[in-house]
């Protein structure tokens, strides 16, 4: 594959702007440090390859999130064939030892627990929640996921309620 100047320039822009979000995304989809780094590299390669065919059908931001999430979902699918790990949103409520967010907000335990909670979700819910946590607007999330804005709002509301209940913190 011969890179084009546009492809490289767009990749550099995307990596610079969204690099931290991509790293957080890899963390939401893979717990193992070595495989997480592999996933992050796969995401960057998929992004770089995809940008050769960037056709302006959506913004660069939407494009980046779509490619990154699709790559991460494929990674989860491959891993799922090897290990049965994902549980439903309902089952995630049964995760052990709820903590108080207020008490642990500053502690790494809270972040570790949040990661564990997200990774226990099925990929579609995981995608929605991580996009919400990145502070994207509902319309942007709908554009990235292909869901209707109503479906996005309903499902994020359910996820927030469940998340807040598990962390003993009221949903906002």
């Amino acid at each position, binding site marked *: 594959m011969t890179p084009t100047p546009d492809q490289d320039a767009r990749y550099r822009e995307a*990596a610079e702007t969204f690099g931290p979000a991509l*790293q957080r995304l890899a963390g939401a989809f893979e717990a193992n440090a070595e495989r997480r780094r592999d996933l992050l590299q796969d995401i960057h390669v998929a992004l770089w390859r995809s940008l050769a065919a960037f056709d302006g059908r959506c913004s660069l931001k939407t494009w980046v999130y779509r490619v990154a999430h699709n790559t991460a979902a494929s990674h989860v699918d491959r891993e799922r064939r090897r290990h049965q790990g994902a549980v439903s949103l309902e089952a995630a409520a049964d995760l052990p030892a709820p903590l108080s967010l207020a008490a642990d907000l500053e502690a790494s335990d809270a972040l570790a627990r949040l990661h564990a909670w997200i990774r226990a979700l099925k990929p579609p819910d995981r995608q929605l929640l991580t996009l919400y946590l990145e502070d994207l607007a509902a319309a942007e999330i709908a554009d990235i996921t292909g869901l209707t804005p109503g479906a996005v709002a309903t499902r994020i509301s359910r996820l927030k309620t469940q998340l807040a209940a598990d962390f003993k913190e009221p949903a906002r």
Partner: protein
Amino acid sequence: MTDRDPFQSLWTQQPQEPFSMTAADLARRSARFQSTIRRRNITEYAAAALVIGVFGWMAWLIPVPAVKTGAVLVILGALYVCWKLHVLAGAGTPDAAAPLADFHRNELLRQRSALAGVWKWYLAPFVPGILVFIGGVAFAEDAGVPLSAGVMLFATSAGFVAALFAAIWWLNQQAVAALDREIAALDAGAK
């Protein structure tokens, strides 16, 4: 969703590890990905080559016309499966920039299509060859085996192959049903 909740702050303020990929890193890893796919295809073709080699050797070695014909038909079946694998492998890569729900649904449909068609393109091409081959072995005139024993040998061998193929088909149908449930759930969730 402009209201920033504590979880968003916790999430976006998490510590980052140093990470960067140069153009050379990207090209190298991309090439590695391609070579993994090539290796996987070569493994599949090698399995077909083994079948072709073994049955070709038997067709050359065994002087019974029906056995030779059966072996040649098995070889033709293996060649057809190879061609089908080649067509499936070249069917194009998924659109990585598709909306997540479409990408996921298309992947499920792709898996479903491959599994649902296993009987047609992976098993059926071998059926004529296998039946003629075991028929040739069971009813070979110079083997000196009584007709009843030949019928028994043919029925047992054909039954074993039929059971094996039925088991593969059944397992695939289970996987197809699971994919159908997943697709239905996806469609319901998208509304």
